[in-house]
């Protein structure tokens, strides 16, 4: 395999990794507050379909339409998260079952498919999409140019978001409170932190990020709508949070690593390099997730792991 192919794989790994970064960051925020959200896949699909609908149906300046499409995707993801938040935080439905219900509700044979059909946007090429921006005019730099300085606005925005989330988590008071709520909600409550408020806010934020991750598919990666186009990326995003030990910096690395696994098949295929059957490459990200999850649960990793102690457990003042 020559260096050209390697570079091509890595460059498209950033594209494939970006929805994982976005959805993973959202899941990380929700889980840091103690809410496990297994509805990411459904939320991403809802974000993807609403963003694509706005970009197809609205008329006006392309920039404005793309902005509104992104806003719509975040609202759609947030609305789905509101259902999850109400069910799990307020009336304390089992978080696992509620999350699965969200994914079935929004998923491949659910509302996202229904809306795609009602809005009649399936199978046609997108009218608007995010194009690559030559940042600082450096795109022709060897290796670094195509990697860092020739991405679309979505990718740059995801980098800003990663830094923002890290700053928020580790350097601000609300970030500290968020971690407290996830670790020990009873103590946080005694300190006067609004546990329910924090959990709602970050679950909704997580949903909005997942919607944004979905919008990346229909506005940048491959601007077209087909049912179930996220193809399991939402689930990989949830797994990423676990083996990134709930840390945003490791999450980005993991997302791009899984971008490589996802990019390998398509890149080799367009260059007619066939070593293994194509199904192997398609299955690779999922196989690697199983391996990574197993590795992250070995005793070596367990000493370093940062699972929020209250993850998955509803908080009730009278029983806590």
């Amino acid at each position, binding site marked *: 395999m020559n260096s050209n192919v390697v570079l091509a794989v890595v460059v498209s790994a950033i594209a494939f990794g970006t929805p994982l970064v976005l959805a993973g960051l959202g899941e990380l925020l929700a889980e840091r507050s103690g809410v496990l959200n*297994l509805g990411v896949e459904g939320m991403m699909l809802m974000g993807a379909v609403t963003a694509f609908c706005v970009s197809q149906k609205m008329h006006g300046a392309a920039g404005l339409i793309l902005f509104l499409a992104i806003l719509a995707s975040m609202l759609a993801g947030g609305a789905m998260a509101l*259902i999850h938040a109400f*069910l799990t935080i*307020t*009336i*304390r*439905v*089992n978080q*696992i*079952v*509620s999350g*699965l*219900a*969200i994914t*079935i*509700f*929004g*998923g*491949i*044979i*659910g*509302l*996202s*498919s*229904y*809306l*795609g*059909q*009602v809005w009649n946007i399936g199978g046609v090429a997108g009218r608007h999409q995010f194009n690559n921006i030559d940042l600082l005019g450096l795109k022709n730099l060897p290796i670094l140019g195509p990697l860092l300085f020739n991405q679309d606005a979505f990718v740059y925005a995801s980098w800003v978001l990663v830094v923002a989330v890290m700053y928020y988590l580790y350097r601000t008071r609300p970030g500290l409170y968020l971690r407290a709520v996830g670790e020990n909600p009873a103590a946080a*409550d*005694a300190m006067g932190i*609004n*546990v*329910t*408020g924090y959990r709602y806010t970050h679950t909704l934020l997580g949903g909005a990020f997942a919607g944004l991750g979905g919008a990346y598919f229909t506005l940048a990666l491959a601007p077209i709508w087909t*049912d179930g186009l996220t193809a*399991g990326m939402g*689930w*990989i995003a*949830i*797994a990423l949070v*676990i083996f990134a030990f709930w840390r945003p910096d490791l999450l980005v690395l993991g997302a791009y690593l899984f971008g490589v696994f996802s990019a390998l098949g398509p890149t080799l295929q367009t260059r007619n390099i066939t070593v293994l*059957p*194509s*199904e*192997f490459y*398609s*299955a690779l990200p*999922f*196989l690697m*997730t*199983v391996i990574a*999850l*197993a590795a*992250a*649960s*070995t005793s070596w990793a367990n000493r370093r792991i940062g699972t929020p102690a209250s993850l998955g457990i509803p908080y*009730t*003042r*009278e029983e806590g």
Partner: protein
Amino acid sequence: MIGPLRVERRLDTPGWLKVAVPLASILLAAIITGILLLATGHNPISTYHQMYSASVTADGALSSTFVYATPMLFTGLCAAFAFRMRTYNIGGEGQLYMGAVGASATGLVLGDWPRPLLIIAMVIGGALAGMLWATIPALLRAYLRTNEILTSLMLNYVAGFFMYYLIYDSDSYWRDLTTPGASVFPTGKTLGPSASWPGITIGSFVLPMGFVLGVGLAVGLLFLIQSTRYGFEMRVVGDSPQAANYSGIRTKRKIVSVMAISGGIAGIAGSSQIGDFGHVLDPRGLEQAQYGYTGIVVAALALYNPLAVVIVSLLIGGLTNAGFALEGPSFPTGLVGTMEGIILFTVLGGEILARYRIGLRHRAVASTPASAVTATEAVS
């Protein structure tokens, strides 16, 4: 509880609530779906009427409902059994695929066996394949504490691609390489007539053998959970893993065996897909049907009770049947999953509400200090 709502656990749930709440939940789901239908330009009443006709009263509709209900009965039992111990096996989908692979191999290899023996062999072949596939996440969960939700789910995709590889991208044993048409459109080998499972025909209605088998399995599982030491230990592990350890239950083995049984049940769903209906390994058809994931809906709505799974599988089977029968501009396929989701939301929410007493927080309480709130709620 913080916020405007006050939620308290009931000491015991009155009997009438246990019946009224699920009924009210389904009614509420129908109303919410009706609003969605209205908002997207459809008449809810006539849509519901069409659905009822397409799944129950029309010619052959009821038989067709059982065709969809049969795999859901197995995948529903698969999820219900594992979820009962709080081991969340989401891998029913992939275990069904592997079961179909195993059962079709058995049916092809042993094609000249006498029919009853061949059918039994196919059931076992599918169950073993599903069992083995479920053992991967089970062992990881038991011995490394790896999250079984995610690993079992990931393996669904892997099993799907494996099935595609067998039929579309290799000269595997499962693929038909002899008939002329099969070189243009790759298909699996069709099983012989003795590998086809007999249905019970009553007039124009056909009851698939798989459904009968599933009902028997449901009764067996109920007995296993409620009346045996095995089931008792399962419930202890599910409710309190610590108590299970103290009392000497071998938790790790329990997790592996429960997941394996659960996977075996989903594997039989695959056997039934081959023996009862398809008679050929059809990756695309199995993947589009999403029976494994629908099994989770069935199990959750049945509140993980095996006998209730039988009834709910018919309900969701009917819904799916109506979805496929009416598929078109006025009834997009996505409506089926949407309705399943809405029913899940209302039933899951309702089930909790039946166990808790909900009221609006009194203003006076909201302004008192935290400790006083706790005291007030403990008294009231």
